[in-house]
């Protein structure tokens, strides 16, 4: 019979206030297998750990149970402590009598009773613990960055600078993302393109960066250190090796299409480069609009191309590449303002979003930087901004703050005043949030030097009279209705997760919140990691951020990814599935449910009634298995077990609970 020790921790007063720790330790002495039991103020502290190690040696313990805080917190501590005492680290159990007893119960007697029950279960389990060991798996020293906005670009450059190969992938044909659409950045009013373009070029030219644009991730297999990523490269119909980017095709293409990059405010052709600074700066054919591809007529671009780079026969290409780590930097979509019918969004062309305004202000935009109304091209004089559209609005399912809007609205008001000194900006707001370096000062300037008129209140309705937009709302500070005859209304549309964010999360096996933002492993202490080892987050895909925050997180993700890649090999989980071949019936149900493709079939020979017979059994690849347990619950013969959580151990716990 295994000799088990029990160590009950007071956690200062955290546990001791609601649990009679001494009593728990005393009762535990009677549990079968327990040969030593004691309590102590701080088991995790140096003297506490020493106490455990001494007891292991003195009482010749085969394993022990620590009743303390959450194993998430200190299981590694006590495992290491076991190792120092000469035990296999998996011979110990930690039972959480803090979060599960003292912190949730007020009644000390009941808290004690529950602690005893939990401890009895843990002792029963510990008696069935077996030494476990981990194996090592090699790491593929290559990273994948999904999304090549500013966050993705920064991550890729940082990883590449650290000497690792990195693939920078984007589904658009140019890298740059949302930041490329932005005219100027707050609070410094730098030209966005001026600071972004060098980064884009650096990424494109970096020897360690492979750029894969116009491509999507369709499947991710494998596990940390060795992800097998299936990438679908969409057909461009232009051979980039031959194309010189001369632009002749674009010029001659007869098909005009509304430009996505310009937010529909300007045209592009069916063969096009989305914006002048695009990287790669070579055109692709939009198969949905190309006349040749649609009905075989036209073919002008092919005829005109001096290098015969146009290739209508090109097909999508699917490749599978292996990466050690993945950084997700897929950014955001802008909230669809047409959901605000009361603002006439979608109906009135002069009710636009902040991103529209960015394009209208941009020198290379559809209006060459002149702010003109989309409806009639007139220069607006009275401009109304409405904040918190599609953010902080429970009714629209967007209760969160989009964080960047307060500042970009201030920026817009400032820039408009600079461009058109005769104009007047009215800004309807709920609160003004300027938490950021030099942000508050910028906002003050907008008000004081740039004549931005901030009105605290909600707009209830916008309607058109003549060529004016009547903005009707309430100034809640003075408690009076307001009505403004505006020429242009700019809605500060919030950020929302990409429409396909959930689908990608499922492909990657990472978690997401109720809105679709990807969930970090810990909101405070692990804001970069996901719950899936080896996959990290950068930028807005995790939640609304402005540019400096995205860049900071991008660099952090790069460090995480590089840290992983710099290890030669990873230690695999010790608590992984194992198949009892004697019992395994070879039905293969485990194989079909394993999310890590860690289970395979194998043939075994055995002597049955004097004859050698072959049969099929399941075998777990310890490198791939993550110990999720899907196979164990699906195994009809209970041949699959998670080491450290075997069916027997769990039954022993249930038994112990029932035998109080």
């Amino acid at each position, binding site marked *: 019979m295994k000799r088990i020790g029990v160590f009950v921790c007071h956690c200062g007063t955290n546990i001791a206030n609601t649990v009679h720790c001494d009593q728990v330790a005393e009762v535990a002495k009677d549990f*079968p297998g327990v040969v030593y039991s004691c309590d102590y103020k701080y088991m995790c502290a140096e003297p506490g750990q020493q106490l455990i190690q001494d007891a292991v040696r003195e009482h010749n313990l085969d394993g022990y149970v620590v009743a303390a805080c959450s194993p998430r917190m200190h299981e590694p501590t006590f495992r290491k402590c076991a190792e120092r005492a000469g035990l296999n680290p998996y011979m110990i159990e930690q039972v959480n009598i803090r979060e599960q007893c003292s912190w949730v119960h007020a009644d000390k007697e009941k808290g004690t009773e529950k602690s005893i029950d939990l401890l009895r279960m843990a002792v029963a389990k510990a008696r069935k613990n077996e030494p476990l060991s981990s194996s090592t798996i090699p790491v593929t020293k290559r990273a994948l960055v999904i999304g090549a906005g500013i966050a993705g670009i920064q991550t890729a450059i940082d990883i590449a600078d650290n000497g690792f190969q990195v693939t920078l992938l984007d589904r658009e044909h140019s890298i740059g993302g949302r930041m490329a659409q932005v005219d100027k950045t707050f609070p410094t009013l730098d030209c966005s393109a001026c600071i972004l373009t060098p980064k884009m070029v650096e990424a494109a030219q970096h020897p360690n960066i492979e750029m894969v644009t116009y491509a999507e991730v369709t499947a991710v297999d494998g596990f940390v250190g060795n992800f097998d990523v299936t990438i679908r490269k969409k057909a461009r119909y232009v051979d980039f090796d031959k194309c010189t980017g001369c632009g002749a095709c674009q010029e001659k293409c007869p098909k005009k299409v509304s430009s996505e990059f310009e937010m529909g405010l300007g045209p592009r052709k069916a063969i096009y480069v989305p914006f002048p600074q695009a990287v790669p700066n070579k055109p692709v054919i939009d198969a949905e609009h190309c006349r040749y591809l649609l009905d075989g007529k036209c073919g002008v671009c092919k005829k005109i191309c001096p290098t015969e780079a146009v290739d209508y026969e090109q097909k999508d290409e699917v490749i599978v590449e292996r990466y050690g780590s993945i950084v997700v930097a897929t950014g955001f979509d802008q909230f669809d303002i047409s959901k605000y019918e009361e603002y006439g969004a979608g109906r009135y062309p002069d009710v636009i979003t902040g991103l529209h305004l960015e394009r209208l202000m941009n020198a290379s935009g559809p209006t060459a930087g002149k702010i003109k109304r989309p409806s009639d091209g007139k220069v607006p004089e009275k401009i109304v901004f409405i904040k918190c559209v599609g953010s902080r609005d429970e009714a629209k399912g967007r209760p969160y703050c989009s964080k960047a809007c307060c500042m970009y609205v201030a920026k817009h008001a400032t820039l408009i005043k600079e461009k058109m000194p005769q104009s007047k900006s009215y800004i309807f707001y709920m609160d003004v949030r300027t938490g950021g370096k030099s942000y508050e000062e910028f906002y003050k300037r907008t008000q004081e030097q740039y004549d931005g008129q901030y009105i605290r209140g909600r707009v209830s309705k916008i309607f058109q009279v003549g060529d004016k937009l009547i903005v009707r709302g309430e100034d809640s500070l003075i408690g009076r209705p307001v009505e403004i005859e505006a020429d242009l209304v700019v809605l500060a549309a919030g950020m929302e997760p990409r429409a396909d964010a959930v689908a990608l999360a499922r492909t990657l096996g990472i978690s997401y919140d109720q809105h679709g933002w990807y969930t970090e492993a810990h909101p405070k202490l692990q804001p970069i990691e996901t719950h899936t080892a080896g996959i990290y987050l950068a930028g807005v895909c995790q939640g609304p951020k402005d540019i400096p925050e995205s860049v900071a997180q991008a660099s952090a993700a790069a460090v995480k990814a590089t840290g992983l890649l710099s290890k030669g090999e990873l230690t695999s989980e010790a608590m992984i599935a194992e198949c009892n071949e004697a019992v395994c019936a070879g039905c293969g149900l485990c194989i079909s449910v394993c999310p890590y493709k860690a289970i395979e079939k194998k043939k075994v020979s055995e002597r049955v009634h004097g004859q050698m017979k072959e049969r099929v059994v399941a075998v777990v690849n310890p490198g791939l298995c993550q110990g999720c347990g899907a196979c164990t619950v699906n195994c009809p013969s209970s041949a699959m077990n998670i080491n450290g959580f075997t069916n027997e151990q769990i039954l022993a716990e249930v038994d112990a609970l029932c*035998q109080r």
Partner: protein
Amino acid sequence: MKAFPKAKLQEVLKTLASKGTLYVPALVDETHRYYPYRADIQVSLEQNSAISPKEIFFPSTEKIYNFTAYGIDGDYEEILPDRTACVLFGVRSCDMQAILCMDDVFLTRGYIDEYYATRREGATIVALGCSKAGADCFCSSMGLNPVEHEGADAQLYDLGDYYGIQGRTEKGEKVVEALAVAGLLSESSAEVLVPEEFVLQVDSEGIAEKLQAMFEHSLWDQLWRKCINCGTCTYLCPTCHCFDISEKKKNQHCGVKIKCWDSCMFNEYAMMAGGHNPRPSKKEKVRQRFMHKLRYFPERYGKYQCTGCGRCIAKCPVNLEITDVINQVREAKVNG
């Protein structure tokens, strides 16, 4: 002979029940087996019980001792069987013969099984002669007289409207006396009803001897093919007496050692520690069962361990009939 009218059966049973526990075949929740008599119980003497009366002497689960174990200290506390006397009413010849088989096993050859012995000594068996052969009965083929069995303490005969009764032992006489005292008995000269010819018949003569040379016979290669290795035949059999000893924990420190029915049809039955199984497949298990009934038991105790009650035939999920096995053994060619 002395007799009581069938109409007065309830009074007879009440009288006997007043002396001690009285077991009667009855239908409760659609199950026909022996139950302690109660006035509201549906006594059924029309046909033999579906579950044999062996469980009265040899319950399917029986406690032997309690144990405690605290650390390295432990203790054992014997649990002795209940010594109260009882009467078994309506036991058929086949089941009476089966009890004699069990007597051989549990009361002879070196050791006496205290549990069986205590219950057996305290019991008075009132047998009931059959006037009708059940669908699966073949006791006459196994050398029994369906109408009476000399091993019983008292014998009931079907006289049509009456049951005749005769005491055979001191215990049996006491039963008759008790009924007489209660004024329930009268004299009857009616003929004892006997069953018409059995539908199932088999010639069992000399089978035990023939089987001695048939352990390796090819017959066994075929018999097991439809068997599903369930324990129905052995658990319903009035003579199957194999048991296992295991334990049931009450809590982490104490538990009870139990003796419970086991079946040679089960895989784990002959499995040894370390995994060797001398009877690894259905073939060996099926052979063991029939060999035990028809050869080993006769060799050891001088009688067949099958009494023709037909329960295994009635309930075998695949109709593997012992009568058919006997026929096949009879017809089998044996070399040399």
